Structure formats: C-alpha cells, structure tokens
C-alpha cells in the first residue's frame, strides 16, 4: 500500500474507506491478508482517481461503489452476462460462491479475473440453489361434513349469537344468576 498516495481527501477519510473495503472483504470470508491488501489497493486507487475529479464526494462511498463495480465485472466474467439485472446476477454469483466454498477452496481467486482456475469457475457454474422440486400443482378441496341435525341447529344459533354479542352477554349473566340462585336456595 506504500504506493497509494491520494491527492485529495484527508488521511482519516481514506482510512475510513480502507476499513470499509477491508470489512466488506472479510464479510465475503476473504481472510487472506495478502489478497485483501491487493484488492483494497486496487479499489482505493480507482476511488482516489474519481475523488480527484469530484472532491466533494465521500471516499467511503466512492470505495464502496468501486468495489461493487469490480465485483460486477468479475461476476459477469464467471457466470456470463445473461439477461439478469446486475443485482440479480450479484445475488446468484454470491450464492454460487457460498455453495462452492470458493473463498476457502480458492482463496486468491475472488476478483482476480486473469487467474481464476477453471475448476473454480466450473464449481460456481454448477452451484445453483434449488429450494423445492418442480411444482406439481394439484387441488385439495375441503370435504363437506354433515354435522347432523342437532349440531347444525346449534351452529346456526351460535352464528346468530355471534352477530348479537349483547344476547351472548345476557345469556352469560343468566347462567351466573341461575348458579347464584341455586346456591342461595341450597344454603337456606
């Protein structure tokens, strides 16, 4: 990183940008320090060029955008351009990286367009997520249950009572009053 000498922005700002890129690489399970440093330097160099042209922008934001651009290019090179939007392609590529264990099995490959081993590419291409088998949609119609005369009548009454909560309350009070009356007479 000794060669990195930004012409604009403060050292604190570039330090924050450095940390952000480092954190993001770590979130991608890129723990190899040498590879981390290489990628960070590349990203910060590009960000610093853009900052020179527009010093009002925050280096953290510029570094994040450069990182994103670098990744989009690498993802496209690994999985092809296809018809997917950049965001969908990024999601698909990350899932492929996760499933193929790319950061562990090929620790120097991430974002290195020239030196990606063919096995890594094949592993990524083969790694697709399948949350369910092909749909085989069918119907499931509820079966009628003839509850019988008594429960049907009770059901109708219940539904009627539900429309008149005041009647339900009165019935409850009536039951309570009946119990009280029974107790009263029992204890005479």
């Amino acid at each position, binding site marked *: 990183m000794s060669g990195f000498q930004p012409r604009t922005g403060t050292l604190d700002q570039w330090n*924050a940008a450095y940390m*952000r890129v480092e*954190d*993001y690489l*770590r*979130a*991608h*399970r890129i*723990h190899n320090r040498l590879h981390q440093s290489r990628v960070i330097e590349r990203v910060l160099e590009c960000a610093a060029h853009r900052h020179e042209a527009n010093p009002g922008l*925050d280096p*953290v*934001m510029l570094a*994040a*955008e450069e*990182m*994103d651009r670098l990744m989009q290019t690498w993802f496209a090179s690994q999985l092809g351009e296809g018809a997917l939007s950049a*965001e*969908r392609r*990024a*999601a*698909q*590529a*990350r*899932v492929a*990286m*996760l*499933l193929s*264990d790319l950061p562990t099995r090929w620790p120097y490959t991430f974002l290195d367009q020239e030196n990606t081993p063919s096995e890594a590419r094949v592993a990524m291409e083969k790694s697709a*997520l*399948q*949350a*369910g*088998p092909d*749909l*085989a*949609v*069918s*119907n*499931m*119609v*509820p*079966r*009628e*249950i*003839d*509850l*019988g005369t*008594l*429960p*049907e009548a*009770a*059901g*109708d009454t*219940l*539904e009627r009572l*539900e429309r008149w909560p005041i009647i339900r309350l009165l019935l*409850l009070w009536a039951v309570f009053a009946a119990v009280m009356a029974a107790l009263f007479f*029992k204890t005479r």
Partner: protein
Amino acid sequence: MPNPTPKLFVTERLERRRVIKRRFVFFTTIFLLTSLAGWFMADLLWNSGTHPGRMSPIEWVVLVLFVVLFAHVATGFVHALFGFYVLNRGGDFCRIQRALPPEDPHAPLAPTAVVMPVCNEDSSRVFEGLRVIYRSLEETGKLGNFDFFILSDTSDPNKWIQEELAWVELCKQVGGFGRIFYRKRRQGINKKSGNVADFLRRWGSRYRYFAVLDADSIMTGRSLVRMVQLMERNPTVGILQSVPRLIRGETLFARLQQFANRLYSSVFLAGLNYWQQGEGNFWGHNAVIRTAQFMEHCSLPDLPGTEPFGGRILSHDFVEAALMVRAGYSVWLAYDLDGSFEEGPPSVIDSAKRDRRWCQGNLQHSWLLFARGLRGASRVHLLMGIMGYVASPLWLFFLLLSTIHVLDQDLSGTEHSVGEIIFERWGFYFELPQTLALFGLTLVMLFVPKVLGVLVQWREEGRRPVYGGRLRMVLSAVIETLLSSLLAPINMMFHAKFVVFTLLGQGVGWVTQRRDAEGNDWREAILTHWGQTAFGLIWGISTYIRLPSFFWWLSPVLAGLVLSIPLSIFLGSSKIGGLTRRWGLFLFPEESAPPYELRRLEKNLDECYRHMRPIEELRDDYGLLQAVLDPYINALHVSLQRQRRPAAATRAYFLGLRERLLKDGPKRLSAREKRALLLDPESMTWLHRELWRRPQTELAEWWQLGVRQYNVLTAQPVTALYR
C-alpha cells in the same frame, strides 16, 4: 428343519365380525365395571344423606357425575387390562407389523416426502434432527426413495434467517441439494394443517406417501423404511401412525414423563390396538400417510361460527383420521415399531401451555360427535379426546359438590357414611365402610395399569436391565405414582380453567419466563400457581374446620394444590433431574441404551450450543443484521424470496422503512415492519448496498458496531448447525 415362514397378517382380510366381537367384549367390560361402581355409589347415597331412603337432587347430580367420571377412568383400566392380556399371549396377531416379515430388505418402497412443519423453533434442533434422520436413511441404502421438506411458518426474523442458513449448510455438509428442500410461507394461514396442505398442493402429487414429523421428531431410517414398506404391502391403509417415545428430557418433570410413557404405554397401546384395529387415530406427526387419498378425502372444512368453538379446526389430526376411515381407508397404529421419538415439555407450566392449545382443539370436536357418516370408532376417539379435558372440570365439580353435600349433612346434623360391608375372616368380623370399598375400586382402576406395565417389563428387566434393574424400576414407578398423584389436582385445575375460558371465548395469559442458571423461575411459578394454592388452602381449611374426617379424604387433592408452587419448581429443575439420573431412577431404554441416532443427535447438539453467541448489543436482531450485512446471507435470502414488483405506494412505504432501519437501527422498527422488509427482495438488496456504501455518520451506531464486529473473531458466520 428350517423354521416355517410365519403366517402374515393381511389387513384387507381382517374379518369385521372379529373386530365387532373384540369391541363388544372391550366396551362391555367398561360398562360392567362402571355399573358395579355406580351401584355402590347409588347405594351409598341412598342410605346416607339428609333423607335416607331417597336421593336429593344434589345427590342425583353427584351420582351422574360419578358414573361419567368412573367410566372415563375404567376406560383407561380396561385398555391396560386387555393390553396385558394380549402381550402375555405373545402379542396380537391382528397388528400391522405382522403384515411383513420382521426383516424384509426387498419389500418394495415408493416415492415418499418427509415433511417437517416448523414455526419459530430452535433451528439447531430442527436441522440436527433432520441430519440424523437423513444419515440414518442413507445408511439403510434406501435414501433414493425419500425427499425432505422443511416447511417453515417462522415469523421471528432471527430464526427465519437461521433456518435459511442452516438449510444451506446442511445441504452442503450432507450433499443434500436436490433432496432436502426449504419452503417458507409468506403468511401462516391455517397454521400447521395449512402449512402441510400448501405443501400437498404444490408437490403432493409427486409422492405416493408423505411422512409428517414435528420439529422435535426423530425417526430412524429403519422405522421410516419399514412404515413405507408396510403401506406398500397394505394398499387400503390410509394412515400408519407410529408411537413416538419421549426423549431428551433433563428436568425431573420431563424424565418422569419419559419413564411413564415408556414403561406403562405398552399395555395401553396394545389394548388400544385390540379394539380399534384398522379404525385408529392420527396423532399429527411421526406417521406415514397415503398422499392422494389424504388430499382427496381429508381436506378440512370450517366449522359453524367463529373461534373458539367454530371456524378453523385446530386439532386437525383426529378429524383427518376420521375422514380417512369414512372414505374406506384404514388407519393403523404401529404400536410395536421402534425408532420413533419426540420431545416432551420440560415443566408443569410448559405442559399446561401445550394443553391449553390442545384443549381448545379437542373441545371443537364436540361438533363432529354426531356428524353423519363417521364410523363409531372415530366417534369414540373424538369423545376420548374431549373427555381428556372435560373430565377435569367434572372432577372439580364432583369434588366440590361432594364437599358441599357432606358439609350440608354435617350442618343438618345427619350421620354420614352409614354404608358398611361386614365380612368374616379367620373367625373375626370386619366392618368395612362402603366408601372405602368404592375408594378401593377407584384406586384399582387408577393404579393397577401401572402395576401391569411393570409386570410386563419384569422378566425382560431381569435379563437386560434398561430401566436400571428391577429394584430401581419398581422404586421409580412408586415415586412416579406419588408425584403424579400430586400433579393430578394441579392439572385438574389447569384443565378446568382452560375449558371454562375456552367456553367463554377468552384467552389465557402466561407469565414471561425469566429462568435462573438452574432453569428455575420462582416468579413464574408463583404467578401461575398462586390461585391453585389459595384455592387449596381455602378449601382445605374450611373443610378441616367443619369436618376433619372428610378433610383427610380430600387431603391427596389438597396437598397437590397447596404445594403447587414448590412442586412446579422441584419438577422443573434440571439439577434434580440430573441427580435422579445419576441415582439410576426413571431410566428407560432410550436413555440407558440409546440408539446411535440419538447419540449422534446429542453429540451434534452439544457442538452447536457451544458456538460463540453474538455480542449482547447485536443479539436481538442478529438475523436481520446477517441478512442485510453478510453478502452471502443477503444473496441467499434474496434468492429465496418471490421476485415481484410492488405498487408505487408500497414502494414508498418500503423506502421509508429502509431509511429508518439504517438511520435509527432495528430497535425503532416493529417486528412486523422487520418482517415486511425481509419479505421484500428489492428492499433487502437496497439495504445491503446502502449499508456498505454510506459513510459511518449516516448509519445508526448499531450498524456501525455490526460492520466492525462481523466475522472479526470467527472466519465463518455463526450458524445454528454443527460443523
């Protein structure tokens, strides 16, 4: 000379006449026992009371209640009695397991889906359980016939993300992509039955059978293969239910349940199979079901009215079994099949919480008791389910009414307890109060089944001790009986409350648990049981003051109520549970000689729970943090969501939520708002990009901390899975 091939049982050839004969004998025995006890009780009431020679209205009510309750108790006793008889004869010929030779590796199989509906469960337990089942099936060499589905209705964002991650990790580790699937519903309509129905509508027609598991179920590969083979062998069997053994209990309460479930259940289950035969019941999980027939005949309609009594059928399993039988397919209980497990609640209060749900569901079944077209056996199953809860308020009412009746006699100066039986032995004349005879008969009904359970195991225990040896087995059974006697009135009070609250359409509130290091929570116990304690004290003191002799009759009931708080703590203690295990008490086969599937599960879970937990500040919303911050988890989560383009108003709503989440942190958002964001793939992609793009000053402190801490100490993110 080689052994002749054992004669196989063919379910289709089961004679209806034989089943009718069995049921006649079985239910007549219950009827005769109830009649005998009813006679005693009627005689007692007739000769005592304020008006000897006739019965008052209150005495009639006491008699009716007694007959109903005694019939309920006698039903349990007769199950055990007939089960003991069957087991002693070397087992029932008419049982589903006899439909195939004990080992038949070439018996055909068919495509089967193993489905596991989950809802806010411990992800480690769910996926490690699934790993064990998967590996066990792999070892049978029959894995190719099975697919696995995790059907999630989880609403807790943390658990939701844990599940997604654990699913991918499990698939990677066992090579399960294309065989283990994960489906999360956006809305949990109709809870578990809706969850399974959704699976059936999407993929059901791909499979001839599906095995339903609970989140805490374990089934060995051998048992699953065997059940599917049995279904293939018997094409008219619609549902084959296994008997899940309780496992992994650590508290004293859980260990007691496990021990009792294992030791006593053999006689009850054999008795159950004796009369129900092919018109059995479905318990909701650890069962294999014929898919097409289930889809055609067992989809449930709503009941009249709204909840709690009407609306959606909550305890769907009993009704599904009834509908399957109505459609002409049989439902069998594979009661002697090993390799089916589940976990029980760890404490009295947890058990009551589960009962609260079941109670409402079972009470709903009263609608169906008289439904046209159901078979008699299905009605008996529904009735037994209802009585499981309704018996409690009836017992309480009976005991209170008896207290009032006795106090009434006392107040009016009437002599009570006049009935006596006089008999002669060895030249002496003994006077036995009739109440004591009745009491003795009831005790026989309650405790003889336990004795029969011990007797069945007695000989085997001498050869191969799996209950800790004969002495410890008997000692454990005695202690279990004493403790369950103390627990009975507590459950009676709980169930009575649940029934009344359900009838009134009220919910039951529970205290939030705050357990200490040993898993005890005195606050929860006091707030939950104080009413029972107070009720027991008032009942006991008033009875003791008025009529001390009656107080002693009531004392077993009163003791449980008065001691409910310390008893709840004592039974819920893992420490005491561990001590009893060290002393060799309440041991059972799955604990003393566990199958390797259970050993493997324990080992893996130990590893899982040793994982480093996220730091305190991030813990509450760690799932959301991972889904936004971690590029892989974000990509995984987004890939699993349905891609859609929301309306302009919805997009504006999401935009506001996203900004609030990044600027204010997740604490300022409700759980509903977090769930909404997690369900929107566009929002999740946006949040990930913006979180990493924005300078620190534009992010909430919570996010700044998350970015700096994430993966600092571990190379890989923490998952719910053993590695």
